[in-house]
């Protein structure tokens, strides 16, 4: 027999069946081991059970053949993040076990590819069941191809989770439906070999140790933040995009290159980020709704361009898909350490708005909102994404496509221009926004410049004019302030303890709050979606609470610094920071809060 189990695995059927309403799975091995395949097969299974999903991956910085891990969470209630622990690990090698061990749930299960030997000793808690099956060896022996170990493994895994064999097989057929029939059959055969080995180790159909709940969520999308954001931009009339490849922003370029041409638009790969933002600026000058995106290193290269947008009053959406810095840092890791540069990265004072979606689905809403907002303020609107927000996928409600509008704001039509007596590009107005005639409009000729200039657009350094122009531009933010996206609130507004955080940390913070509430601690949560200007809701939230934990992915406490700079009382804030590149866990946040509160 090729199948071995760790002593403590015992007879699966003997232990009482566990019913899971929330399960986190990790599948890991060398790139090419097919971790992603098993994860996506499971994903389809869980989806068909109506569960809410969240998926992420962790690709080492090796170029090829490095270690790769796929993570998947399925739950009856939506969570928007990974669980605190891994319940089920499918490990193709020792490294996978080592990586997962610290996060394994004590009552978890490990399925281990024992082709190269038994699982590593002494690193997994004794309470964890281990099923060691030589997937690879069996796949080679029975079918002559190592690669088929995924499908074989999927057979075992589906038995552990109590998935009906037929259902599992049909997910598999669905997944490979574009491949030649013979290939599909071989994969199915591998799956069945997996099933028969499952039988041998006591994992017969119907005798699985676990079953996973079903749920009745409505129709959902499973989408990553970069995709949703790009889609939002398109839906709100976005037509020109320029970018330069960089992790984790490249998917935006890819998505828009695929989709924009169908709508008479264009996504262009520029020679660098300087070119990208200036091309997008040029397109924006024609009235075309435009966007540029990058990550930290490229985003700061764009900052002179952002100042120009602010000064010359040109509408553009600029996206920063943050990654762990400084400099090249850890490009595939999560961090929120560009808050300072998103707010202060350009030179001089100019109006700008920094928005942050509350979750992957909200990226659609924020993408569309930003596209219109840029037109309204005729200036830069920055979207703060982060690695996880950008690249992780989760189930979200279908988007309200009918609700999307295209707001032309103060854009003048040809007819409107012709009716004017005179046309001044930088006319001083009460709301700070000047009516806008785009090139090609007869009678609308104007000069756009990043120099200080008079209402006609002619360069002027005259002090009185300068004051008027700076004040005019500053007014634009006041004009839109009330319409800026409000944050997501959770909990009772009278709770003394507040948790504050944004972006991909937000859903985790909310899970922590739920834990705290369950533990009897009275908490409330604010997850701002407008980072700059700092809205009153944020300052008030901090003022109302006795103590606020400001939870963010960076070392310097940039969010805390920002809100206290805007007037929130620093003495009420406790800064919780993580900057090792790995995500928060709700349990750790909750425990830290409990500890600190106990110490108060």
């Amino acid at each position: 027999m090729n199948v071995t189990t760790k002593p403590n695995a015992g007879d699966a059927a003997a232990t009482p069946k566990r019913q899971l309403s929330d399960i986190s799975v990790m599948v890991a091995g060398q790139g090419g081991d097919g971790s992603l395949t098993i994860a996506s097969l499971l994903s389809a299974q869980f989806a068909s059970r109506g569960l809410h999903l969240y998926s992420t991956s962790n690709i080492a910085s090796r170029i090829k053949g490095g270690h790769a891990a796929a993570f998947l969470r399925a739950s009856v209630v939506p969570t928007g993040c990974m669980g605190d622990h891994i319940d089920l690990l499918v490990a193709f090698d020792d490294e996978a076990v080592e990586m997962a061990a610290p996060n394994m749930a004590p009552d978890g299960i490990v399925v281990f590819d024992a082709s190269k030997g038994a699982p590593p000793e002494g690193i997994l808690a004794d309470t964890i069941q281990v099923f060691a099956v030589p997937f690879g060896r069996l796949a080679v022996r029975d079918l002559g191809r190592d690669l088929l170990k995924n499908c074989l493994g999927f057979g075992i895994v589906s038995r552990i989770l109590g998935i009906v064999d037929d259902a599992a097989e049909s997910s598999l057929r669905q997944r490979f439906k574009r491949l030649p029939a013979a290939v599909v059959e071989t994969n199915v055969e591998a799956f069945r070999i997996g099933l028969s080995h499952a039988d041998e180790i006591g994992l017969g159909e119907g005798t699985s140790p676990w079953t996973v709940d079903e749920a009745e969520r409505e129709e959902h999308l499973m989408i990553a933040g970069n995709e949703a954001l790009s889609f939002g931009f398109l839906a709100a009339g976005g037509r020109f995009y320029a970018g330069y490849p960089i992790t984790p922003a490249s998917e935006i370029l890819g998505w828009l290159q695929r989709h924009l041409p169908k709508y008479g638009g264009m996504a262009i790969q520029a020679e660098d980020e300087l070119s990208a933002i200036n091309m997008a600026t040029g397109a924006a000058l024609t009235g075309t709704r435009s966007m540029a995106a990058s990550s930290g290193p490229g985003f700061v290269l764009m900052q002179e361009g952002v100042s120009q947008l602010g000064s010359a009053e040109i509408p553009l959406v600029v996206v920063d898909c943050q990654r762990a810095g400084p400099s090249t840092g850890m490009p595939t890791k999560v961090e929120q350490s560009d808050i300072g540069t998103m707010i202060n990265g350009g030179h001089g004072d100019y109006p700008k708005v920094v928005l942050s979606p509350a979750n992957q689905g909200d990226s659609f809403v924020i993408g569309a909102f930003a596209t219109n907002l840029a037109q309204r303020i005729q200036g830069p609107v920055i979207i703060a994404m982060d690695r996880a927000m950008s690249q992780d996928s989760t189930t979200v409600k279908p988007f309200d496509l009918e609700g999307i509008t295209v707001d032309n704001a103060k854009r003048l039509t040809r007819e409107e221009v012709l009716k004017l007596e005179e046309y001044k590009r930088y006319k001083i107005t009460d709301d700070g926004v000047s009516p806008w005639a785009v090139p090609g409009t007869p009678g609308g000729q104007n000069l756009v410049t990043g120099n200080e200039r008079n209402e006609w657009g002619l360069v002027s350094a005259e002090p009185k004019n300068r004051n008027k122009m700076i004040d005019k531009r500053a007014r634009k933010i006041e004009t839109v302030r009330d319409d800026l996206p409000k944050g997501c609130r959770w909990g009772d507004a009278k709770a003394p303890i507040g948790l504050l955080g944004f972006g991909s940390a937000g859903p985790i913070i909310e899970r922590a709050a739920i834990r705290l509430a369950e533990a009897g601690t009275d908490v409330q949560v604010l997850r701002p979606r407008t980072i700059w200007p700092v809205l009153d809701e944020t300052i008030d939230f901090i003022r109302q609470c006795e103590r606020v934990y400001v939870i963010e992915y960076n070392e310097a406490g940039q969010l805390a610094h920002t809100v206290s700079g805007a007037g929130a009382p620093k003495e009420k804030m406790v800064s919780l920071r993580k900057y090792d590149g790995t995500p928060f866990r709700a349990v750790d946040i909750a425990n830290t809060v409990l500890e600190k509160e106990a110490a108060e």
Partner: protein
Amino acid sequence: MTKTYTPAEPIWCAGCGDFGVQGALERSLIDLNIAKHDVMILAGIGCSGTLQNNVGTYGYHALHGRVLPAATGVAFANPDLTVIAVGGDGDGFAIGAGHFVHSVKRNPNLVYIVMNNSVYGLTKGQDSPTMDSSAAEGLDSTRLALSIPGASFIARGFSRWSAQLHELTVAALEHTRAGRGFAFLEVLSPCVTYNDTYASWESMLDNLDEDPDYDPTDLSMAFSRGVALDAEGRMPAGVIYRNDGAVGKEAPPSMAGQDLNPAQHLDAYRGIMNSYAV
């Protein structure tokens, strides 16, 4: 008619070569009968980068070195405009060198006029990349352009030779307006304040337009002629190289004029959304 801004008086020093460039451009726009509201002049930063204020068209003052990306964005987004980028040699060949290379390669439909005076005029006279100095020989921007696949129109004028400059400006505009792509015109435009080269440059110029043996469609000839002249301390003027460029290539769609009403695309958007359904 709606009153718009009054074009500014040039702020150049008396005798600056840039006057000639502006004159040639203004005359060419009239000759070709192009309405001012259909023209967008984008400028870099420098003395040269003030020309856009003086003509009465749509104007944009780009960031230093970034006039080509900005102009490319305009040209792609609204192909109905006549797009003219102008700027200095520092703007184009120092901070903007990378964009120059990629613009020649990308061949967008726009005219690019560089007022080359071999110095940074606005910042008070530092050497620019086209300056021959003891440290290094100056760049020849036309030769640089020749080396880039995609080059479709390369010419050099001299701001004192106004008849030829006018012809070259018209030719550049026609190249672009015929959809052939990027028309690059370097104009030797002396800076009387920091580097008065009227006489020396005039004596160095060899007018290819007057040479019946010169074939501006022969890339290798264009290059070797430049090298040979250089060896004699001279340099070429006129149309140095031209081809059909982007003719026949599909022109990008105009984005600027689109009706963006989302209702018309609802079905298509729903299709995208459904591709994510689980």
